[in-house]
């Protein structure tokens, strides 16, 4: 794969890469940093990619690991205010969506990442497992526990089902 093809493939998954980074870091600036570093890291390791059909999982895993490395190097600062700044595509159920997003942002890692990728990005647990470098059963456990926590948080917020 040459530089141009790499660039095209990065463009294809840039929104997803940002979503993964934001799920871990919870603020826009850090998510952009993780994304940028992840792209550089991926390009430098491109010769390790033996099968281009797994590019999506491969680069998402690199961005995820880059974001996790960043969070390990600094204390996990919470920027929940940014959740309120997320532009909504439409106004339908806007309040519920905002409440849900805030609740997801309150989840701890790795539950937050699993929930974002499963519910917001609609990725299968198998794919999430590869991105997060854990077995599928572990992702299912993350989701199971995360749902319980979300249920509690959302019932406190009088979330409508």
């Amino acid at each position, binding site marked *: 794969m*040459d*530089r141009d093809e*790499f*660039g095209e493939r*990065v*463009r294809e998954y*840039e*929104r997803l890469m*940002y*979503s993964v980074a*934001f799920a871990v870091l919870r603020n*826009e*600036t850090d*998510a*952009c*940093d993780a*994304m*940028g570093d992840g*792209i*550089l*890291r991926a*390009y*430098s390791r*491109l010769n390790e990619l*033996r*099968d281009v059909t*797994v590019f999506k999982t491969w680069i998402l*895993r690199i961005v995820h690991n880059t974001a996790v490395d960043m969070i*390990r190097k600094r204390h996990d600062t919470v920027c929940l205010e940014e959740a309120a700044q*997320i*532009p*909504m*595509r*439409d106004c339908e*159920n806007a309040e*519920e*969506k905002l409440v*849900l*997003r805030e609740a997801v942002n309150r989840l701890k890692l790795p539950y937050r990442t699993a929930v974002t990728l499963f*519910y*917001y*990005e*609609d990725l*299968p647990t*198998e794919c999430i497992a*590869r991105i997060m*470098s*854990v*077995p*599928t*059963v*572990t992702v*299912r*456990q993350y989701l*199971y526990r995360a*749902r*319980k926590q*979300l*249920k509690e948080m959302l019932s406190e917020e009088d979330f409508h*089902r």
Partner: protein
Amino acid sequence: MSEFDRTLKKLAAEERRDLPDSARERVDAVLSSLPERGKTGARQMTALYVRRIAAYAAVFIFAMLIVLPNVSSAYAETLGKVPLIGDFVRVVTVRSYFLDDGGHELDVEVPMIKEKGNGAEEINRDTAELTEMLVEAFCKEVEISSPDGHGSLNITYDTVLNTERWFTLRLCISETAAGSAVTYRYYHIDRESGQQIRLGDLFEDDGWIDALEEALTRQMRAEMAADGNLTYWYEPDEAGFGGLALDGEHDFILTPDGNLMIPFDEYEIAPGYMGTPFFTVETEVFDDFLAEEYRDLFR
């Protein structure tokens, strides 16, 4: 899927965020800074990464010194599982990892199916990528854990079915950290087509899902009624979590005597103390939905 789950999925899908301008600008900047690949590009990338390499050197040195993957073909042949009489497909250990520092144990065997066809290639690629990823994650955990930290990763494989028509490889992944988890992955090859087969491929329409779920629920109910110590989460709990939910990717086993067996991972359908339960489903339950080419596989 529970009502609560459906609500979350719906709201989340509608609220999926767009890429902010700042992120798009960052991608533009990074991509435009990339050198061409090749020797010159490699040197540029090396310069670009001097600091990053230093930062990660400890991890790499650790991996080089302690985790010794054996990748020689002679070794693979030596360690290859000796085929039993009547086996049609041969599987060898193509790579192995071992580590024991008193607190952390790593013991991994990476299989390779010695068979031509897309199915074997797909499976070999999948198992290689999966094991490599888990080993990498384990090494990272060892690196950042305290000196008295503990943990283990054990990956083994075996052949569940190996006939002229069908081949099934099982990968067993056992992890111990704060808790423990065992998971199995089953890979199937239809040797007539050479393709990898997933549960959904066996059937012609989606009616099989309800049929199998009903049959499994009946069995779970019956077992619970007969033994008060058994618990299965075939229905979502009062909070709307869990419940039996099959799909086309779910693991399955074709037994040598022509039965369909559905295995479950730990915690998937029952509490951890129940281990990894499995159930055999009678052919008449799903017979009407079977794809023509797989009818002969079942009794």
